[in-house]
């Protein structure tokens, strides 16, 4: 203690003390803000994710969508479509397209989850657009209302996707696919991005809560038992007519033949 009291009045004491204080403060701050530190790590990871995505994009997508996602005669520009579009199109297997037919169809996805995330990050980096969602974020079970969703579905979706979500035909070979068995996040992403021939249903037209209700109705329709017996594809009277002419009339005429057969 003598040492301290001895040099207490030294002319360098004040500047040194200041230095210690500043160093201490700085250290404390840097320790206290340690949670911020990974941000720079995350940013780095993110840029590697984007780079990975770019690599996948260059290999798998650029031949149609252009080296920078600017689009070409055969494929649209991806600038500004956002991660939601990529997540929907690639994770449902629609992209990359199998053939240049009217419409990309759902199939087994070519890329795994990480690759899809990388692609989505890359495309999202081109220009801002709707973000991708996870199934956990789509709280349809908690926030949706089945009956309201049904009304919304009939108002906005049934004209193409059919009353029971079984899908339907559009012009020139395009079609609205069945919405049965689709992951909630993909339904949500489809509504906000409007893939293929589908229009965009912005949050002003159908609010996020209403979107959850639609998803809830679709999930209810998916699990609804066939209350009247065999559902016959839930496509309306065409299959009913087919059944009556084959099984119904077939049986009846068969029995008529049997009733009038000569005893041998």
């Amino acid at each position, binding site marked *: 203690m003598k040492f301290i009291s001895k040099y207490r009045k030294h002319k360098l004491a004040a500047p040194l003390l200041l230095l210690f204080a500043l160093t201490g403060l700085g250290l404390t701050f840097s320790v206290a803000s340690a949670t911020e530190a990974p941000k720079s790590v995350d940013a780095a990871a993110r840029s590697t994710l984007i780079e990975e995505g770019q690599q996948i994009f260059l290999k798998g997508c650029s031949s149609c969508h252009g080296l920078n996602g600017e689009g070409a005669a055969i494929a649209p520009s991806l600038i500004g479509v956002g991660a939601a579009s990529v997540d929907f199109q690639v994770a449902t297997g629609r992209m990359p397209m199998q053939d240049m037919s*009217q419409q990309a169809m759902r199939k087994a996805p070519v890329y795994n989850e990480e690759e899809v995330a990388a692609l989505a990050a890359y495309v999202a980096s081109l220009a801002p657009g709707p973000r991708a969602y996870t199934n956990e974020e789509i709280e349809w079970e908690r926030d949706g209302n*089945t*009956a309201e969703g*049904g*009304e919304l579905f*009939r*108002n906005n979706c*049934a*004209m*193409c*996707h*059919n*009353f*029971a979500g*079984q*899908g*339907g*035909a*559009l*012009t*020139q*070979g395009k*079609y*609205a696919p069945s919405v049965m068995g689709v992951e909630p996040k993909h339904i949500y992403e489809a509504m906000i991005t409007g893939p293929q021939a589908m229009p965009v249903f912005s949050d002003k037209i159908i609010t996020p809560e209403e979107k959850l209700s639609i998803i809830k*109705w679709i999930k*209810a*329709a998916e699990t*609804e038992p*066939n*209350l*009247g*017996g*065999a*559902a*016959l594809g*839930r*496509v*309306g*009277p*065409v*299959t*009913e*007519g087919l*059944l*009556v*002419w084959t*099984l*119904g*009339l077939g*049986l*009846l*005429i068969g*029995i*008529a*033949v049997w*009733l*009038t057969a000569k005893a041998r």
Partner: protein
Amino acid sequence: MSAREKVAANVANYVDERTGAASWMKKNLQKVFPDHWSFMLGEIALYSFLILLLSGTFLTFWFDPSMRHVVYEGSYQPLKDVEMSAAYASTLHISFDVRGGLLMRQIHHWAALIFMAAIVVHLLRVFFTGAFRKPREFNWILGIALLTLGIVEGFLGYSLPDDLLSGTGIRIAHAIIQSIPVVGTYLSFFAFGGAFPGEVFIPRIYIVHVLLLPGIFLALITVHLMLVWYQKHTQYPGPGRTEKNVVGYPLMPVYMAKAGGFFFIVFGITALLGAVASINPIWLYGPYTPGQISAGSQPDWYMGWLDGLVRMAPPIETYLFGYTVSWNILIPGLIIPGIIFTGMALYPFIESWMTGDKKEHHLLDRPRNVPNRTALGVMSLTFMLVALINGGNDIIATHFDLTINQIMWFSRIGIIVLPPLAFVITKRICLSLQRADRELVLHGKETGRLVMLPHGEFIEVHEELSAEKKYTLTQHQQPAAIALVKEDARGVLNPKGIRAKLQARFSAANAENIAKPTPDELKQLEGGHH
């Protein structure tokens, strides 16, 4: 006489003394009906009608034919608190909250589809065997009336629940009414009590569906059957069967048993369908609001051809003196069906004029022996089938990976090209079958047994047909064509002019047949081999 027989005799005597029923019953219970499976097709329609009456009565106990707005509070959760009409809500109630209600609804609807299908196959049987000829022309017309009313009745029936699909159907009916030039708008206001959809349409079609049309049906079916009774049933040709007799079994007991049993079989199959196969799941369609529509909206099958015609119609409209004439609805929705049904109703008279045949016929034709009629029938069927296929074009497109546009163009071209093609092909097939019959009669059946004759020639042994079989194959008449009389002996031109020419041409086409074997030809062959 045992005690029991005595009681029965006393009861019968008691009734007979007061009603005189015995002699009538004795006569009519012994009435003979010919036996053939194709004669039971009309019965399927009759029994389905009875099933429709019974199941329909059940449904009326709960159905509320009102377009009053209600909020659904029943047990089907996905529609909870949804606003809808009382008609729709009560149909949901029948489906989910009435014991056996859904089963009865489904039985009623399946029975309707079977009813219409049975009417059509019955009509085809009558047409292709020529059973509509004199003296049965009126019964044919009654049949066409029943078919037409059946289509209307079915349409009104599935329109009643006021669900999204049926509302769409009513909307199309509304459009067809509106397409009638000049008066269409007024007629639609009259039918709907104002603008579409209004509040009165469901109650109105309800009373037509459950009272007016079933009443007319009952009356027409009664007359239809009374005429069959009075004119006797036609029969297929064969040994012992003539234009003056009916070969078959008596009504009592054989036909009573067969027909009674068949009723229960028809009921059983309808109930089976109602129990295992969903039909018109109105809870999935949701309530009707004019702003909504579902992909794959189709009518029931018997209206499908009409929908198909409308779907393939090119978008033609004209604007005349301030009125829009929508040919794209008017032609397929009213004009073509009008021509089809009028033509069908008048066909017995048309054929009689074409062939000049004014004789009574109680023996049926084998379709091959009347190639022209058979070909006409297949031609009309082809037309209807192409239209029906186009009615389901969207479902076919999605399920067979085709485009709607391809199917539409196939139908547009096919409906013009395929029917005449079907006519030619059918006629050729009929003539070939006639040729085969002729071979069979002259040379017998091929046995596949080869025999070497003493001088080395190989022949195949042909087994001669029985006399009965030969008779069946050769009993039919082959009328000659009507000769065209241009002018009579005194040089006066035929006053019928172009009509006579047309008749001569039609009758010549009708008389195109492979000559059936003559007795001389048969005799020549006897003893010899070929």
